[in-house]
């Protein structure tokens, strides 16, 4: 038996259609739309003006506070507009629009870097570079990495976990990255270990990615400090708390962080971005995006410049197929449905999923038959049926005392409900109302 977490969990059909498609480089778009709020925390502050010439990797918006991040120009070109555009959240957000300079050769430089294994920077310099180079968590939450890595003096920290789980169905961006940039990722892990001064790292990979497991086992054969943890396939194992439980059997306390049990978790994508920043002086301006869907002609994985309109990605896989009903930014379990395809790829876009008519619509919500399935699958040990009832009746205080806030919004409850009840929708609503209530109380 492989390791896994104990409470709850589901196993939806994996549908990893693109797991054998190597990552292609997407053509550089004519125009990029770079939102200034791509990460969790305070939006960045724009430091360029219309008509400014920018080069690749130049800072165009600087960090707006501690929990914030720099944003760099993904292309060389001219700033044409600073205005609000709809982004993946569906709201209008401030964006920096840059027209790509078609004559600038740096835009089309597809030369791959050679692997560089010797780490020259000191721990302090590493942290500074991660801060400056706009690295955020690429697993989807986009939490600024330097905040995570800035561990207070005196905190016991003994293990770095690398999240290569990719438990979302359909998505294969992390899987492909692990296969194609394995040695770079190992160096990236060493960089983070050096920065944090810890001597143990475990790469967690689910058993449906056997090739990646074998590859990393082979690469870490002679490494005494880096191990590979093979995990049973189970959603939501990529959740930080679930991963810590699965690999180390430690319980992250309620409302706590992995740091409370001496662990830091980083996604493989983030580790690769850190590698590029430290070894090749490259800020975070592109990422891997899986563009997938059962009816797509050429579903695949792409290296995409941040700010590229999703339209370009869809064109690259042969256009939207007939009968498309939903387009999701992210995976099918936690991704956000988007209304139009003009919105740009951001640092948090791990995939674009195109869903057809028969899969898109939800079943009609019926009476709860009290089967308890939502309780059995909840990875946080909550009672979704109860939370939904309480929120429906507006008993926010009681929902709060039933720990509604610890919900990680993985969607397992809504996924299994045989009566198609919108459990997670009500829980989200309840969490927001609870937050407002707390603000009023304070």
């Amino acid at each position, binding site marked *: 038996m492989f390791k896994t977490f104990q409470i709850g969990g589901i196993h939806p059909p994996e549908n990893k259609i693109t797991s054998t498609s190597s990552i292609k480089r997407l053509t550089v778009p004519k125009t990029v739309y770079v939102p200034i709020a791509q990460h969790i925390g305070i939006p960045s502050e724009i430091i360029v003006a219309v008509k400014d010439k920018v080069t690749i990797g130049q800072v165009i918006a600087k960090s707006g506070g501690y929990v914030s991040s720099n944003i760099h120009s993904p292309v060389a070109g001219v700033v044409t507009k600073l205005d609000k555009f709809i982004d993946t959240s569906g709201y209008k957000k401030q964006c920096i629009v840059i027209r790509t300079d078609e004559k600038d050769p740096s835009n089309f430089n597809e030369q791959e870097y050679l692997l560089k294994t010797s780490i020259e920077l000191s721990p302090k310099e590493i942290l500074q570079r991660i801060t400056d180079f706009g690295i955020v968590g690429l697993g989807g939450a986009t939490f600024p990495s330097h905040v995570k890595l800035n561990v207070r003096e005196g905190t016991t920290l003994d293990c770095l976990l690398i999240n290569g789980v990719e438990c979302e169905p359909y998505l294969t961006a992390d899987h492909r990255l692990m296969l194609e940039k394995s040695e770079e990722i190992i160096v990236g892990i060493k960089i983070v270990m050096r920065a944090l001064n810890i001597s143990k790292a475990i790469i967690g990979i689910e058993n449906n990615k056997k090739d990646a497991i074998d590859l990393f086992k082979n690469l870490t054969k002679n490494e005494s400090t880096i191990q590979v943890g093979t995990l049973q396939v189970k959603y939501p194992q990529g959740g930080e708390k679930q991963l810590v439980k699965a690999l180390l059997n430690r319980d992250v306390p309620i409302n706590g962080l992995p740091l409370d049990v001496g662990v830091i978790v980083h996604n493989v994508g983030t580790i690769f971005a850190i590698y590029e920043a430290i070894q090749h002086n490259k800020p975070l301006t592109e990422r891997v995006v899986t563009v997938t869907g059962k009816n797509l002609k050429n579903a695949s994985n792409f290296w995409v410049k941040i700010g590229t309109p999703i339209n370009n990605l869809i064109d690259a896989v042969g256009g*939207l197929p007939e009968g498309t009903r939903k387009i999701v930014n992210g995976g099918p379990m*936690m991704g956000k449905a988007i209304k139009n395809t003009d919105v740009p790829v951001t640092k948090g876009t791990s995939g674009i999923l195109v869903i057809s008519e028969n899969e898109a619509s939800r*079943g009609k919500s*019926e009476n709860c*038959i*009290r089967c308890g399935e939502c309780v059995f699958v909840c990875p946080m040990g909550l009672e979704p049926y109860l939370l939904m009832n309480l929120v429906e009746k507006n008993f926010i205080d009681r929902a709060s005392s039933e720990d509604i806030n610890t919900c990680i919004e993985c969607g397992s409850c809504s996924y299994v409900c*045989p009566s198609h009840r919108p459990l997670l929708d009500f829980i989200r609503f309840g969490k927001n109302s609870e937050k407002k209530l707390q603000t009023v109380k304070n």
Partner: protein
Amino acid sequence: MSSQSIIISASPHIHSDRTSKKLMYDVIIALVPAFLVSLYVFGISAFFVTAIAVISCIIFEYLIQTFLLKTTVTIGDGSALLTGILLAFNLPSNLPIWMIIVGSLVAIGVAKMSFGGLGFNIFNPALVGRVFLLISFPVQMTMWPNPVENSIKIADAVTGATPLGIIKEGLMFGETMTEITSKLPSYFDMFFGLIGGSVGEMSAFALLLGGIYLLVRRVISWHIPISMLGSIALITGIFWLVSPEQYANPLIHILTGGALLGAFFMATDLVTSPMTKKGMIVFAIGIGIITAVIRLFGAYPEGVSFAILIMNAFVPLINSNFKPKRFGAKIKSKIL
């Protein structure tokens, strides 16, 4: 592609293919072996009882939803059909038709619809119907046609008691278990269901087959059936070991009197059982204890229906006292 046809909704964007309807039909499929056995044992009358109960349950649900509650009719969800089958399985096959109809009315009208319909009832509807009939018409409800020999006769069938009835009666007249055992059917007959009893409760073999199907299809989990049968066996076993001449052995208690029907199909009813595994175990042990107490010391020879209904009443209390363990709840966070 115009943006008009693109819909948005909150995650998750995929759904498992389990539906309430499929769960109901899975339970119905699991009841087929028991039904076939009862057709063999009681003949066509078993079919009539089941058909009448099913049809009247569906009709009552339709009438109540259309004319009284004026809500959407949901007879297609399979729940009324299932209630009808389970009610019939708890009735003797020679029960007068009008009594079956009254039982159905109580099951659907009183136990289910008056609470708000599917999902809101506290008590198992089929059992409420059955217990109502048992209390109102004790004579007709405890006269079971003898097996097999009656299968072609519909009227004037020879009637007799169930194994547990024989035991209870014998013990009341001061007979010892050795004397009573000679009057009981063989274990083979008890296991395959060639004994007197309600339509669907006699064949341990067929019910186990259905139970295993439900476990494999993950409609039910092992917690309720195992805890319930285990506690019945444990308690009756202790008494049997202490005084084997006064008490029947646990095997008889498990094989007869609807213990298996109750454990796999009635106590596991999704609506009226607890929401957590811990709660299910508590609930099932409660049923086991009450069943054993009624059978060993009560006036009725069997007590599964009463035990389940009594424990149904405790389900809300069990739900609020046996909650799942929250992730990371034991340790206090350093941050807060």
